């Protein structure tokens, strides 16, 4: 009995430790200006949508009173994030699924080495590849373009998609397509009509993982974009009014940005262990 109580308390403490910071930033996004900086911090407060309105430029006159200079750049950058994360994910999942299928079903010469090469590309520290990409992209005029960032994120996620999808496809019995091929389907048709539907939940999980990675990426977005193609992560940082760091608006931006990640986490919770270890661990 006492053991159960101690366990309960420890788990409660852990939940507090991991969730309180998230609660605090979300609460801050709904606080009025003076409440944000109140000492001692306010746990009970009158909530306001002010910061969200400011974030989406819904009430500019009122914002001017609080010393906010100009419009918030969040909306276009949020849209950029959606476009870039979405398209790069689509590309990496499509290419990744095809190669994973081939690696899973055919004998490929030097398969182990190829798979190792594919995995090793993910081990490269972003900062190390960042410098040549910056130089290369400047020469190719890809700096600050959507295409440039999509290409990088696609590459970044591709290795991961191959490894994870290979795990999922390995689990589909070979007999399924063999039966289909006996029925007169070609291999390609069997892949489309038998394997793809079977692998759908795996494809969805892989897509969500790629999406979250691209959605959260900061470093390449920082060095390879400036205006047109800038995504949300580097621009949440730039929300500054004349009154110093505009914490209310940062909190609002962060909260909006968190929502998809939290929803997606719940969607892929079953696959988390696999996804975070390139599919090395299977449950």
């Amino acid at each position, binding site marked *: 009995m006492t053991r159960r109580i101690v366990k309960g308390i420890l788990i409660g403490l852990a939940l507090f430790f991991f969730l309180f910071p998230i609660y605090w930033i979300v609460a801050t996004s709904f606080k009025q200006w003076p409440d944000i900086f109140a000492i001692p911090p306010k746990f009970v407060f009158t909530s306001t949508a002010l910061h969200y309105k400011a974030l989406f430029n819904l009430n500019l006159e009122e914002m001017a009173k609080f010393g906010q200079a100009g419009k918030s750049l969040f909306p276009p950058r949020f849209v950029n994030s959606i476009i870039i994360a979405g398209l790069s994910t689509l590309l990496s999942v499509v290419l990744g699924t095809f190669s994973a299928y081939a690696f899973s079903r055919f004998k490929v010469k030097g398969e182990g080495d190829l798979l190792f090469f594919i995995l090793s590309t993910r081990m490269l520290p972003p900062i190390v590849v960042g410098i040549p990409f910056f*130089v290369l992209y400047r020469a190719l005029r890809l700096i600050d373009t959507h295409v440039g960032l999509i290409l990088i994120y696609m590459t970044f996620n591709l290795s991961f998609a191959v490894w994870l999808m290979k795990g999922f496809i390995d689990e589909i019995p070979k007999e399924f397509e063999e039966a289909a091929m006996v029925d007169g389907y070609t291999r390609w048709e069997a892949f489309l009509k038998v394997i793809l539907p079977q692998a759908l939940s795996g494809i969805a999980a892989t897509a969500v993982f790629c999406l979250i990675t691209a959605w959260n*990426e900061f470093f390449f977005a920082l060095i390879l974009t400036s205006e047109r193609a800038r995504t949300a992560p580097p621009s949440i940082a730039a929300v500054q009014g004349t009154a110093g760091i505009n914490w209310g608006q940062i909190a609002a931006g962060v909260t909006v940005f968190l929502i998809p990640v939290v929803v997606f986490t719940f969607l892929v919770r079953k696959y988390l262990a696999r996804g975070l270890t390139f599919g090395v661990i299977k449950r």
Partner: protein
Amino acid sequence: MDGKAKAIHQKALGEYRLKLYFIGPTLLVLIIMNIFPLIWSLGLSFTNYSSLVSKQISFVGFSNYSRILRDPFIWKYFQTTARLVIVAVGVEFLLGFGLALLLKEQFKGWGLVTTLILVPMMLSPVVVGFFWTFIMDANFGVLNFLLSLFGLKKVLWLTNPHIALYAVALVDIWMWTPFVMLISLTGLLAIPKSLYEAADIDMASWWFKFRRITLPLVSPLLVLAVLFRVIDAFKMFDLVFIMTGGGPGDVTETVSMSLYRLAFNKFKTGESCAMAYIILILIIALSNLLIRWINRTKAA
């Protein structure tokens, strides 16, 4: 060739084509987007090229490398990075594995609790950096307030040079303990119950079961988790960039941070490429260790 042989030949050819079409694009993308920049930067690392100034590029041999290897500050930054990695990953290991042991047996609401704990690691490091800069603010930050409830004095989390590095480590711990927890939990849940039952018949103690059953069976996964974390923490950039920018002074200047500065503040592109290569070699050494462990885990 008779009909049958021709059919087999056709089939093999078809399969070969399919393989080519299925794997080709991926390999092409990975080679172009990884090998090419690496070769390019290797070339640049032997020049005095600067992406800011448009002067004649000239070949300087190994002088970039020797300058970096002789720079005492670089070794200091490597030490800072190592300290950050050791502190953060060490605590993550203990906390994460401990939590996994707590969560090993399922209870009501188990699924929700485990999923909620996993949320931090799915967030963007930048966003997490902002959370914590706000929470750790010396004046209005809620962390100091919570500590004051226990009668503790105000801490200058990010501006005190003795504390800033550990403040960054704390945030890394917040973000990545769930990762170690998840991997450990996966391992713990995979241990066959029959082993414990057999030990129970022999009236084995809790400690005996832990040392002889739990630990050996879960340790390959623990090593995997720790190595993944070490490699990732070694590359850490976003958190430091947002929270301290390397300061105060240079106490949180990690290798990634100083490489960023060399490349994008000082624009010494050639020199930064050389430094990138030195870091790359270290990471490859670490990664090889990791892959070897993965293979051993798989074989077990």
